[in-house]
């Protein structure tokens, strides 16, 4: 058996638990029995017994035939009308045939039928039917004052059954209708929310939102005046903006004090629709002297304020005014206004969030641009400083060379020694300037790669040659080793060389005894590591993460007494990253440091 859709009408649950088809058939059996009884007991009055039997037989057959009718047909109200007409004719005919037709009885019969069709509550109907039949029975007995023919009393259960029968049909039709209307309304509401959310703009254009709303509301509710109050700040709903449609005098975004509008204020406080009748416009809009001239009627016969809320947040109030006298708003219309308000709230909420996001994005972009600007300026400043510094250094070194070469007369041994120190320091200064330039260049991303495939040996030879002067004053020489199986490497050798030069010269600088060693070893994932280990002063653990910072040398440590720019390691790190590598550091104070430069075997 097909399951019927659940019918959610209050007060009828018990009755509708039984499927409709079964209920109809049972009720009809009752009618068949009662009618047959009426016909049989009054046999012979003016109809042949065979005709009576045939009549009863037809009715029984009709009910048996109903068992084969589809269940779904019993859910359709179109099926009930013919059935009710058929049964009405049949019952009336059986009354006529049985000779039980008397004026008073007929009246009660039709009264019940009429009540059943216009009364739309099944239980109330049954009560009325019972009362009517009882009353009828009572008066029947009172007026005759004698024991009447017992068959007359049969009319009483007959009336009751008939009332049940029609009452049931009336109820079914009513429920069908209610369900259909409800479904239609829900569909309408959904369509409304959909069209609203589609047509409401995603930007916070109040004017456009207002126009869209005005259209939708007028389409259904036909309001004469239409206003929206928007709340500036959900937490302090004292100030807001007022928008009105053309008929209301075009308040497009007037800044108002919402406390001056009692209806709006009440709406905001109660958070539910507020309906008022016969309100003076000045009471609704005390702040609007000019607007009252535009109002058609001095009184607003009806006004309704609906709060615009979404997730507990108050966005404003929609206010509708009706010029029409005794305009009563149906619950459906109020509900509609609430739906529109809800859709508006969603739109406003979205629009506000969107605006906030946009503002945040703009703010971040500005900050990012400022940072990029500052960074670019810094790099440019570094570059120009470096260039500017070169000229005086060139002068110092130029004169130094002239003096040293004896162009200004011969020098004593002592003077030559001083000149040597002078020139060495000038070269140190030049190294700082070069480092500044390199740094600014890398920061600006100008450094480009010059990739070549080669063995590591030539690199080690170059390093050895260039570092030789530094080794002069130390009691050790740098040891170079290459692990077996280190492949041919494709990389930017110049950059790799400056990274290693930097680290090695530091290692030599900060090591007074022991050794400095460069080992080239294979690393995981087809990488190659250049490990520079020394037995120098070492780096405190907590300072290791800081050594790659710009301009930082370890303050308070013996390192201060060593020369250095403090830029070297920062540049080394940047250069290593440029060729796809990284630098790792391990160190122990007093025992030495290990710098591991790991690069891929192949860089593009």
């Amino acid at each position: 058996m097909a399951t019927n859709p659940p019918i959610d009408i209050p007060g009828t649950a018990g009755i509708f638990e039984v499927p409709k088809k079964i209920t109809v058939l049972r009720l009809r059996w009752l009618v068949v029995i009662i009618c047959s009884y009426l016909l049989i007991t009054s046999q012979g009055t003016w109809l042949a017994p065979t005709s009576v039997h045939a009549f009863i037989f037809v009715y029984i057959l009709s009910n048996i035939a109903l068992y084969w009718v589809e269940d779904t047909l019993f859910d359709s109200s179109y099926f009930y009308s013919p059935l009710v007409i058929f049964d009405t004719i049949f019952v009336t005919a059986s009354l006529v045939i049985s000779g039980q037709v008397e004026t008073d009885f007929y009246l009660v019969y039709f009264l019940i039928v009429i009540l059943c069709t216009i009364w739309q509550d099944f239980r109330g109907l049954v009560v009325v039917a019972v009362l009517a039949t009882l009353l009828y029975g009572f008066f029947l007995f009172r007026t005759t004052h004698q024991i009447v023919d017992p068959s007359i009393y049969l009319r009483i259960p007959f009336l009751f059954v008939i009332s049940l029968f029609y009452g049931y049909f009336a109820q079914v039709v009513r429920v069908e209708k209610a369900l259909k209307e409800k479904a239609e309304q829900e569909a309408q509401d959904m369509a409304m929310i959909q069209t609203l959310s589609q047509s409401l703009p995603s930007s916070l254009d109040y004017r456009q939102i207002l126009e869209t709303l005005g259209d939708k509301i007028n389409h259904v509710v036909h309001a004469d005046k239409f206003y929206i109050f928007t709340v500036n700040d959900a937490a302090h709903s004292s100030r807001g903006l007022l928008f009105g449609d053309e008929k209301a005098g075009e308040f497009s975004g007037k800044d108002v004090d919402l406390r001056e509008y009692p209806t709006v204020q009440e709406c905001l406080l109660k958070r539910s629709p507020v309906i008022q009748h016969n309100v003076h416009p000045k009471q609704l809009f005390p702040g609007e002297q000019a607007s009252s001239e535009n109002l058609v009627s001095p009184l607003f016969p009806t006004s309704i304020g609906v709060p615009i809320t979404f997730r507990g947040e108050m966005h404003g109030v929609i206010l509708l005014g009706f010029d029409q006298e005794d305009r009563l708003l149906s619950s459906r219309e109020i509900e509609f206004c609430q739906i529109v308000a809800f859709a508006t709230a969603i739109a406003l909420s979205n629009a506000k969030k969107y605006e906030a996001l946009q503002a945040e994005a703009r703010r971040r972009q500005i900050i990012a641009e400022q940072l990029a600007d500052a960074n670019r300026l810094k790099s440019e400043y570094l570059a120009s400083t470096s260039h500017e510094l070169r000229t005086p250094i060139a002068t110092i070194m130029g004169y130094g060379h002239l003096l040293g070469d004896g162009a200004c007369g011969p020098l004593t041994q002592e003077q030559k020694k001083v000149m040597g120190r002078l020139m060495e320091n000038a070269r140190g200064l030049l190294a700082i300037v070069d480092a500044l330039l390199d740094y600014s260049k890398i920061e600006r991303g100008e450094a480009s790669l010059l990739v070549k495939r080669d063995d590591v040996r030539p690199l080690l030879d170059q390093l050895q040659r260039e570092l030789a002067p530094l080794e002069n004053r130390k009691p050790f020489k740098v040891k170079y080793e290459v692990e077996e199986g280190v492949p041919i490497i494709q990389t930017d050798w110049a950059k790799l060389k400056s990274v290693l030069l930097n680290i090695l010269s530091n290692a030599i600088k900060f090591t007074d005894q022991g050794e400095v060693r460069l080992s080239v070893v294979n690393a995981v994932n087809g990488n190659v590591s250049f490990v520079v280990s020394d037995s120098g002063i070492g780096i405190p653990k907590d300072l290791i993460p800081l050594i790659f910072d710009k301009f930082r040398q370890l303050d308070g440590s013996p390192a201060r007494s060593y020369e250095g720019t403090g830029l070297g390691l920062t540049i080394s790190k940047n250069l290593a990253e440029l060729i796809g590598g990284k630098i790792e550091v391990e160190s122990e104070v007093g025992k030495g440091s290990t710098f591991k430069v790991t690069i891929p075997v192949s860089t593009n």
Partner: protein
Amino acid sequence: MVVDDNPDIITIVKTILEGKGYNVLSAYSGPELLTCLEGQKPDLIVLDIMMPQMDGLEVLTRLKGAPDTSSIPVILLTAKVQYEDVLGGYKLGADYYITKPFTSTQLLNGINLLLGEGKS
């Protein structure tokens, strides 16, 4: 002929070259050089890039653009040390490029290359 806005550089270049027997004229800016060139034609010009009034590269372009002066070899002697600067200098027609700071050897090497050994 040496052109630089820094008198010290001029002194140094002059000292180095005069020590080798060259006759050295000097100018402190691009326009001054161009005026000088109206009366005489030096064997070689040592030119700075970063100068007030007229940029050395602008001076170079004018020199190489004018038929009278286009044949004079030009050495750029500048604090602009980046690869692109050097390349840019050569592209504009410089004959040699020396970065500051410089040694007398670098300068003399350049001059010998352009003028030939021992010519004065």
